[in-house]
């Protein structure tokens, strides 16, 4: 409420009804008195006395009522007056208190007139003004006046940052409408500024560390990474660095730093500081003490000197990995640059990140080298193996030739004798000669199989592909063993689908395989048993051929082994059914050369077996399970 109105109300006179009452009461008294007096003077009639009494009573009542009315009104007026006085006092106190606000404000508050005179200032502003005065002789610095004037002309608020000793103030200049002054509200933002600055430094430090980590991901040698790190450090805006620096690593000798990367170093230093023993100069000292070494300028610790060496300072930061030293970062500073814990902390972080990178990169390079060595060894070994294979296959070819030459005359003369072209033989001689022939032929088939396997292994077995009818081939193969089967009273069953058609393969070798499998079937089936061939389309591109028998069968652990070189089932049949042990190995290799697959199925010993093979109709349609 406005102060003036409160005062006006509390001082107002009595109201109009109150004034009327003040007049009516004495008038009533005068009237009563006058009438009473008159009636007393003229006594006579009783009627008059009654009238008089009634009149007095009425007047008295009126008087009473009026007086009560008046006194109540008076009381009310008094109470109101009291209330207003209290309110007034409270207001006054409030005003006083309010006036204290700007005065007690710890932030500077000023009111400045259009012509830059100070109209009001609080205690906090007073301290500033005093210092301005001692500094420049003026109450207000010129730049404040300038801003104030600008604020007047534009009628807009303005913010102004003022550095005052160690403190920073932010002043808001607020123009007031229709007044010839502006208010200045100051605020000490020193701490805010410090926090902001710290945040910025932290952010910049983070970005340096981030960049360094990023360099480590590039597939370049360690030296290049280290050079990039030095370059990045040179770019830090808040660091008074010279455009010079180097990074040393500990390599073969654990007591010597080896310069791995540098930027801007003098020519003479490159050789002079190529290898720095621990303890020598600043870098050596950092390595020896494992502590950051700082120098303000070229001091007595800086033992390396050269012609024309400019003034500078140093930070030498050890790079530690776990509990050992992996190197030292050497940075050049402008002379007089002060040592700062924050910078040291930052450089230590750089060193830590770098330590990980260096170790990782070293391990990677070692691994790479090991890998390369291994690769060379593998290549050498492969070459050796290839050579060995070649030697082996040549050896086998030669041996097979050498073995066949005497066999030729053994078999030949035995046959000549057996045919009795040059005289008759008795039965016993014939029998023995038959044994010679049988053994010689067995030896020959062994030699042939070994040679075939050697050829395949040496990659010298070449298929001579032709298109032929598989049905005819299977039937022809059967004719070859028909005689043997008859001798053993074996039943032969043929089940060849009409649609199997032609295949493109090495006819002679497929025949060899089928014959070999049929021969096995006859060999391993007891007299009176059954053998057979089943053939049908496996899919559009391959044919499945089963050669089965009701013979001695196989146990499942031998399903794979039967196809190994020189494998023969170890049982009572072994001796009975002599073979080279190479037939199935050869079968498997030849079928694989045709891009097919062969395997055996058997319900168990004594339950017969089925040798199955899948032959692609063309070799290009490689079959795989």
């Amino acid at each position: 409420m406005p102060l003036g109105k409160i005062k006006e109300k509390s001082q107002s006179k009595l109201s109009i009804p109150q004034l009327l009452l003040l007049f009516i009461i004495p008038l009533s008294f005068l009237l009563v008195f006058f009438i009473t007096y008159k009636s007393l003077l003229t006594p006579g009639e009783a009627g008059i006395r009654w009238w008089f009494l009634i009149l007095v009573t009425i007047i008295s009542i009126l008087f009473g009522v009026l007086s009560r009315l008046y006194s109540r009104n008076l009381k009310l007026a008094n109470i109101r007056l009291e209330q207003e006085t209290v309110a007034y006092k409270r207001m006054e106190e409030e005003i006083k208190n309010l006036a204290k606000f700007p005065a007690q404000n710890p932030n500077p508050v000023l009111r400045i007139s259009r012509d830059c005179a100070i109209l009001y200032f609080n205690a906090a502003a007073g301290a500033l003004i005093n210092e301005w005065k001692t500094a420049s002789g003026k109450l207000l610095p010129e730049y404040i006046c300038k801003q104030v004037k600008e604020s007047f002309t534009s009628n807009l608020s303005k913010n102004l940052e003022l550095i005052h000793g160690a403190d920073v103030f932010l002043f808001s200049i607020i123009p007031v409408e229709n007044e010839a002054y502006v208010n200045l509200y100051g605020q000490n933002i020193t701490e805010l500024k410090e926090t902001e600055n710290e945040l910025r430094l932290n952010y910049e430090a983070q970005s340096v560390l981030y960049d360094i980590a990023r360099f480590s991901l590039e597939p370049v040698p360690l030296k290049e990474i280290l050079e990039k790190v030095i370059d990045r450090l040179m770019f830090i805006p808040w660091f008074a660095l010279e455009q010079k620096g180097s990074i040393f690593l500990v390599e073969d000798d654990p007591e010597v730093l080896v310069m791995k990367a540098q930027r801007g170093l003098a020519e003479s230093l490159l050789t002079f500081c190529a290898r720095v023993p621990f303890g020598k100069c600043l870098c050596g000292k950092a390595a020896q003490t494992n502590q950051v070494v700082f120098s303000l300028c070229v001091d007595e610790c800086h033992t390396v000197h050269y012609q024309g060496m400019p003034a500078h300072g140093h930070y030498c930061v050890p790079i530690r990995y776990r509990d050992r030293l992996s190197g030292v970062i050497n940075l050049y500073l402008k002379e007089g640059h002060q040592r700062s814990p924050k910078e040291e902390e930052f450089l230590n972080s750089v060193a830590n990140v770098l330590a990980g990178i260096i170790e990782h990169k070293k391990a990677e390079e070692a691994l790479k080298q090991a890998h390369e060595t291994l690769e060379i060894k593998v290549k050498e070994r492969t070459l050796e193996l290839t050579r060995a294979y070649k030697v082996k296959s040549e050896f086998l070819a030669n041996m097979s030739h050498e073995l066949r030459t005497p066999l030729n005359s053994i078999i030949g003369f035995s046959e000549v004798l057996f045919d009795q072209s040059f005289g008759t033989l008795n039965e016993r001689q014939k029998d023995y000669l038959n044994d010679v022939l049988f053994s010689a032929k067995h030896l020959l088939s062994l030699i042939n199989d070994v040679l075939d396997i050697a050829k395949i292994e040496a990659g010298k077995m070449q298929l001579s592909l032709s298109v032929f009818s598989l049905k005819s081939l299977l039937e022809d193969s059967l004719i070859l063993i028909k005689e043997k089967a008859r001798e053993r009273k074996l039943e032969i069953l043929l089940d060849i689908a009409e649609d199997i058609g032609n295949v493109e393969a090495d006819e002679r070798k497929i025949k060899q395989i089928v014959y070999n499998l049929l021969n096995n079937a006859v060999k391993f089936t007891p007299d009176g048993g059954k053998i057979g061939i089943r053939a049908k389309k496996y899919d559009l591109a391959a044919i499945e051929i089963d050669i089965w028998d009701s013979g001695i069968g196989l146990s499942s652990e031998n399903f794979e082994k039967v196809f190994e070189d020189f494998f023969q089932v170890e049982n009572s049949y072994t001796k009975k059914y002599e073979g080279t042990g190479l037939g199935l190995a050869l079968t498997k290799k030849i079928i694989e050369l045709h891009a097919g697959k062969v395997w055996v199925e058997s319900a168990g010993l004594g339950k017969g077996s089925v040798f199955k093979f899948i032959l692609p109709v063309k070799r290009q349609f490689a079959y795989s399970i």
Partner: protein
Amino acid sequence: MKKLILLIEDDARNRKLEKVLLEAGGYEVLEAINAQEALTFLKKTRPEIILMDVRLPDTRGTELVKMFRTDENLKGIPIVFVTASAMLDDVQEMESFSNCGYILKPINTRTFVKDIEKCIAKT
């Protein structure tokens, strides 16, 4: 008159076996144990067939054939290799000559002479 056949074979027993079979087949056999000896014979006489091993002690049979093919006098004589080698390279080399055939060792004594004649007929 019996047909003359030159047999070049270094292994004595194989030479003997083949000679026996050839003579039984009605041929007159001239034996040579190496290329050198064969060339000496060929200066004096011209056989109707030459039978030779591929691996001879002084040269390869195939080299010898190459030499014959340049000689006007010997050019036309059919040649049959009798070899124990079953290496593909050898076979391919033997097949590369015209007027040549081959029989693999061990020979079939019962069909040897017929095999030779079949070879020659083919060429």
